[in-house]
């Protein structure tokens, strides 16, 4: 029996879809049978981030409305053994799939897959509530910014109210140099404010833009620092003990000198 993990954030643009793509691909690279479900109906994006946009025939709404079998809508990613995608509908609205239908779909997918990773829409409205309906665990994506952390706090409260306990925190787009200068909240600050367990950290990495351009998830690239961070995160989710990535940037001699004299 598999596990359903929902990736959510409240605020848009913090990296939910990128995270879903990389965690899903990360599972497949670890030899787990995984499927990514795009629950952002009307604004689908997981297909393009994964480079699978030309392979879509049927979507999530077709399955729910009975226009096709579940298996007909599932796209198998030929580059990664064990990896699959169930795309969202682009033309329907956010309420085309109800919470009950989503729950049923997740239960069905759990029978076939080790991991079901659900990409949740931004916001706290019905679309969010529907997307999380079938989830066993939630991964909250945030960035070390006031607005993203505030929205994450809101989502954590809502998940608690809905009886989804133990959400895990993923802090994305960390800039070590800004943290060192005291111009970005560090990991401990964010964890302290939100007081939930930390799943992992992902440093800011230009390669994410390149990987999205190409439709190739960064986790498959050993030279991408964000990709490696996502690989660690996938390993932790399957139950491995992996230490937090060391994000401290290498100090230069001049930097140490400046610090000594208090200029940094």
């Amino acid at each position, binding site marked *: 029996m598999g596990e359903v993990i929902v990736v959510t954030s409240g605020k848009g643009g913090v990296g939910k879809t990128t995270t879903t793509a990389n965690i899903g691909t990360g599972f497949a690279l670890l030899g787990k049978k995984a499927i990514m479900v795009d629950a952002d109906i009307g604004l689908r994006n997981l297909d393009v981030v994964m480079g699978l946009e030309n392979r879509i025939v049927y979507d999530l709404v077709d399955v729910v409305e009975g226009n096709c079998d579940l298996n007909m809508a599932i796209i198998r990613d030929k580059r990664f053994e064990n990896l699959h995608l169930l795309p969202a509908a682009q033309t329907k609205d956010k309420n085309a799939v109800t919470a009950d239908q989503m729950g049923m779909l997740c239960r069905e997918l759990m029978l076939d897959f080790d991991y079901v990773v659900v990409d949740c829409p931004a916001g706290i409205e019905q679309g969010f509530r529907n997307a999380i309906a079938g989830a066993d665990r939630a991964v909250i994506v945030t960035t070390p*910014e006031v607005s993203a952390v*505030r929205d994450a*706090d809101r989502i954590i409260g809502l998940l608690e109210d809905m009886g989804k306990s133990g959400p895990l925190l993923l802090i994305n787009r960390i800039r070590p140099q800004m943290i060192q200068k005291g*111009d970005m*909240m560090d990991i401990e*600050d964010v964890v302290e404010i939100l007081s939930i367990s930390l799943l992992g950290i992902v440093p800011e990495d230009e390669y994410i833009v390149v990987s999205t351009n190409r439709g190739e998830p960064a986790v498959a690239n050993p030279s991408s620092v964000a990709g490696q961070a996502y690989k660690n995160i996938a390993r932790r989710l399957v139950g491995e003990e992996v230490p937090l990535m060391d994000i401290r940037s290498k100090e230069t001699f001049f930097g140490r000198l400046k610090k000594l004299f*208090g*200029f940094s």
Partner: protein
Amino acid sequence: MGLLSVIQNAIGVQKKQKSKSVAKERLRQVLLRDRVDISPQFMRAVRYDMVAAVSRYMDIGEDDVKIQLYAGEYKVSLVADIPVLKIKHLARLQIDGNNKNGLV
């Protein structure tokens, strides 16, 4: 502490606060407020149960009960103003026992 800040402290020139500390402090306060921003229905439910609980021990001016959440600087408080009309002596007897207070 670097040399510069030692000198700055000595001559009373304060360094500008790091923006990370500003962010953290602002977040702390905004979340305190967000977390107490709850619906009137929710507060009505709390009020209803509080009135029922207190009424077991004293007669209260139910219509004048005021219950509100306040976000202070470091904590959130539930403040209740409940006018007491009369202590229920039977309840007091049951709890305090017959001998205490010389009541029969």
